[in-house]
């Protein structure tokens, strides 16, 4: 259960404070899938980063299955992300120096309870097979298409079997067909792994596939 209550965020800059979020609350249960929409610059990514413990809210609390990541120190917070949260970004953001398989495996390197290399490899291969890349395991990101990269990124986000999967415009850079494929994939995987899924998107088509939708506007949720 992900509970965000009364989240506010403002950025302090040399040119004054920039208020981004104001009293945003959200609850996502196991197996829930949520879409967040809104105009550019309204603070969607910010909210997502806060939910994923990548950015600290100015006020308000976030708990995931009862645990508050912002009460932890840097190392513990990192471990928290590693075990509970998976991220998929708009720009796939794969490590160019690693093969697709290694990119998927990378998060396991800092797992708090190390797993045998063979089983990690097995799981990564399975994930990549699930996303339809069984024959591209050893390829570098530079040798993959945009949609393929995004699928590698999804596999990477799932390798640690997170309870919460956060996607920031996962289909933003993709053509219609690839976007649909990725969306289908996300939906299947979410069900298969019984995860909480939060997707930020501009795309009404993508949003339409989600049972719960929120519209972020004027620093708050308005009903969509």
């Amino acid at each position, binding site marked *: 259960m992900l509970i965000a209550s009364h989240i506010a965020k403002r950025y302090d800059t*040399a040119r004054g404070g920039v208020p981004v979020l104001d009293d945003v609350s959200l609850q996502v249960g196991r197996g829930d899938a949520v879409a967040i929409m809104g105009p550019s610059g309204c603070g969607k990514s910010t909210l997502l980063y806060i939910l994923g413990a990548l950015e600290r809210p100015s006020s308000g609390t976030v708990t995931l299955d009862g645990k508050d990541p912002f009460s932890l120190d840097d190392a513990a917070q*990192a471990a928290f992300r590693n075990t509970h949260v998976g991220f998929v970004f708009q720009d796939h953001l794969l490590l160019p*120096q690693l093969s697709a398989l*290694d990119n998927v495996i990378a998060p396991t*390197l800092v797992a708090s309870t190390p797993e045998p290399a063979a089983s990690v490899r097995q799981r990564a291969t399975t994930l990549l097979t699930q996303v339809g890349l069984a024959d591209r395991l050893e390829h570098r990101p530079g040798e993959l298409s945009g949609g393929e990269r995004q699928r590698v990124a999804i596999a*990477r986000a799932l390798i640690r079997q997170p309870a919460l999967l956060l996607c920031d415009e996962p289909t933003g850079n993709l053509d219609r067909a690839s976007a649909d494929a990725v969306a289908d994939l996300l939906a299947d995987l979410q069900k298969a792994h019984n995860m909480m899924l939060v997707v930020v998107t501009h795309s009404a088509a993508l949003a339409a596939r989600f049972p719960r939708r929120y519209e972020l506007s004027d620093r708050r949720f308005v009903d969509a």
Partner: protein
Amino acid sequence: MTFGRLAWAGLSHYRRTHLAVVLGVASAVAVLAGSLLVGSSVRASLSGLVTARLGQADLVVASENPFTESLAERLAEQPELQGRATVAPLFTLEGIATHQSSGRRAGNVSVYGVDERFFVFHGVEAEAPTGSGIWLSPDLATELGAVEQDAVVLRVARPTDIPLDSLHGRKDDTGRAIRLTVRGTLSRTQIGEFSLSPSQGPVRALFMALPRLQRDLGQAGRVNALLVSRGGQPLDADAVVNALDASISADDLGLKTEPVGGSLLVETASGLISDSLATTVSAIATRQGLERTEVLTWLANKLTVGDRTVPYSLVAGLGPAAGGDARLAELLRDTGTGAPPIVLNDWAARDLGVHVGSDLQLEYYRWADEGRLVVEQTTFQVAGVVPIEGLAADRRLSPAYPGITDAESVGEWDPPFPIDLKLVRQIDEDYWDKYRTTAKAFVPLEIAQELWRTRYGGISSMRLRTADCKLGTADCGPQTADLEASVPRALGSVRAGITVVDVRAQNVSASVGATDFGAYFSYFSFFLVVSALLLTALFFRLGIEQRLREIGVLRAAGFSVAAIQRLFLLEGVVVAIAGALVGVVLAIGWAALMMYGLRTWWVGAVGTTALALHVDPVTLVGGAVGGVVAALVCIWLTVRAVRKYSPRELLSGSTSGAFAAARTPGSIRRLMPTVILVTAVGLAAVTTTGAVPAAAGFFGAGALILIGGLMALGSHLRQPRAGVLGGSGVSALAGFGWRNASWRPGRSMTSAGLVAVAAFLLVSVDAFRKDTHAAGDARGGTGGFALIAESVLPFVHDPSTSSGREELGLQFQSNDPVFAGVSVFGARLRPGDDASCLNLYQPKQPRVLGVPDALIDAGRFTFAKSVADTDADRENPWRLLRGELADGVVPAIVDATSLQYVLHAAVGDIVTIDAETARPVRLRIVGSLSDSVLQGEIMIAESAFAQVFPESAGYRVMLVEVAAGARADEVATAIEERLEPYGADAQSALTKLEAYHRVENTYLSTFQTLGGLGLVLGTIGLAAVTARNVLERRRELALLSAAGYRLRDLSVMVVAENLGLVAIGLGVGVVAALVSIAPVLIARGGRPPALSMVWLLAVAAAGVVAALVATRAVRRLPLLASLRSE
């Protein structure tokens, strides 16, 4: 996959950036390890040089007074040496050699009297010299231009039994000229470069037949040195001293005993018994229950009572026992009332017509310490008259004085002092015929010692007899053999003046060097290392900044900051180690280049071409580790900065938004540079009025300009850009380009600041360049002396007086025109190791000058520092030399440069010289001379000199002042010609000073050269910064080119930014430096510092080249492609 593989993947993927880091680390390691390698190479070369020159000699036994040649065998038989240690005797002297046909002269020649034992000792296949044949060292042969069969005249000082500067010393017979025939040269492997003293200079060695040298010196069967070879076993100096103690004989000490008149006479060859010997003999006598009588006999020029005079009489001072003559003893007992008692023999009493109670004037000669014969007179009261019998008839109360005691008649006397033969009457000749050296008068010993004691001793002989034995009826003396056996053992070799020095250890430790070239080259290469490290950090940072989004992803995936830092540090370690490995190879090349430099461009600093590269793995590894650590520190600082960025910024791929945002300078910060610059101008202005000392004032102003200038640049770069870009053409583009410098103000400031500081230092060290523009003054570097003359043989006449010079044969008559307006100061010299920067070895037994009172009072030269605390001493710190210090510590003055760089001590410190000898001397440095010609020696007062170096008789150095306008070279020629028998060499003080300056200036040039190289490298770093800025802003540039900018326009922008920073850095640094050193520049007639200017031009050129390279980077960028999103 593992952490390591993840790091490895990063390494290989970003290998181009990493390669740049590797090169940066490699340069730092190369320079650092290379510099240290220079140090170890110099040390190894110097150590190798002395070791080779020592041959097999490990220890040296030496004595001022020659000892028996057979001591070598006796010593070798001692248990301490038995086994493999070997001993070879030789006679070693300093001499001056003249090539007879060409007249070429070589001073400071080491003369070795050797026989086959010397060559066997060294294990060398060479024929020992025989007859008048000699071998020369290659350097000496070259210097003299001597080949086989050439005649060479050698002058050496003659070791004398009787000290030169005592009354009976033969002052006009100090040396020997020996005509010899060259047999050839001995190569280095034939031990031809044998040398006991550590010096990197040429070896002037002359090997002659030992028997021939002994004969010429009148020292048959005697030598003054033994070489000891350990033969591979441990043998230290103390063990050799013990062995010596057990093997020295009375003959080695010059001790003679002889039964005379029923008691045992104890004498020495010098006619004086040293205090230590006297104490030893007395102790033995007391232990054996013997009664002893010390005797000090002197020559009275006149014994006068009223108008009657007896000329030239021997007067014996007798100890209280008076040789068992109870009557004499009783008469000599000083009642303490009135004049001291004197007892006459009846011949003298009759001749003088005296009776008991008469006053008697005794006139005598004394050799004053300052090198003058003085006539003194003392009044005695006649206490009694004794017949010429018993002790009063004993001719042996007087020691043997050549020229007197062996003369047939008084008329034939030939003493080393003037005698007025007109005073000698027939009855005096009759007395001589009948009684010879029988004393005519007797005085108490303590009175005699008060009048005639010298630093060589206060007893001329001693009598020992059994206490209650009746003289005349029995032989009361102890056994000669017993005493001759027990005295040497009781005295010991050390007190007998025989020293043992572990020359090998001493010379090897001296080769650690006065100058640590490793440290010097590290300092000199400072800017090179800093530039290399800066480049390393820059490139590594570039690598990280390229990968910010990667870091963001890793953080999102749950990597902690620490884990990410570890990852990058791991990459950094691999890169640094790779850099170190490359660097080690380059270091050898760098060191080889520096060694080549020391042999060629900078040979002025070392004065030898015998320095070669020695690759010492330990040094190399040490330098590599140092370079790696420095690089890792830089890398760590960069990696640490990762923490500053939030994942969000990292993911966005740009950190500029939050961190490089121009911090708008506050109004105070904006005003600061102006305030500082105005202060600088004000300070300079005030200084020109003379209110502030020029050197300090201008240096302050220069430093303020440097700080203010850099602050102004910083504030300019951080200023928010108000105006809108406008205009057209190159200037508008350049303005636009210059704006890019404020893209990363920190980066631009670092580069410009480095250039400015380096330029400042490079130009301002020119002020330390020594020149001789005011050296001729009495307060200048030469002390106002035009010439410094040094002789091989000491002379005892005081050259500062006209009469002394005449005695010396230096001046022909009192108004000799050559010496018109010339003043001379004589100084005593204890020869030894050169303490100046010309000597690369640490001086262990440095040259010491005993400076006369007159020179102290003259207050010449300028002091850098002194311990003076009274006004008088501050006015003339030379006076501090007269200070009395506790525990036998002697006040000394040293040239400031030698003190700091060679002796490694400071004013006020106590330094010990001759530490490895039996007689270490402790000196307190009471002052230091600034930039003086007296760099090679340590100065102490003449009075103290006589005490610490009693064996160094006479003067050997002359400081000569010539009247303005007079021809110094004529005086020099006169000195060299007229003092030819003394082997005098007169050198221009200015030339000498210039030789020292050359060394220091060469070091400065080395610093400027390496610093300049560092600056060039820094400029290249600046280009890298520019290229990076271009890279970072490629989208922006792409936009510009999409907007119609041509590549050439972009190049103009890049060049403008780069050159702008170099020019500002150079400008600020140079202006600040020139202001700082303005007083020196003005004093030198406004001559600009040439070498540093050349380097600055090179820097500017490097700036242009680097800018062009950066431009190429712009050209090669796929600008438009970078507009497309990834």
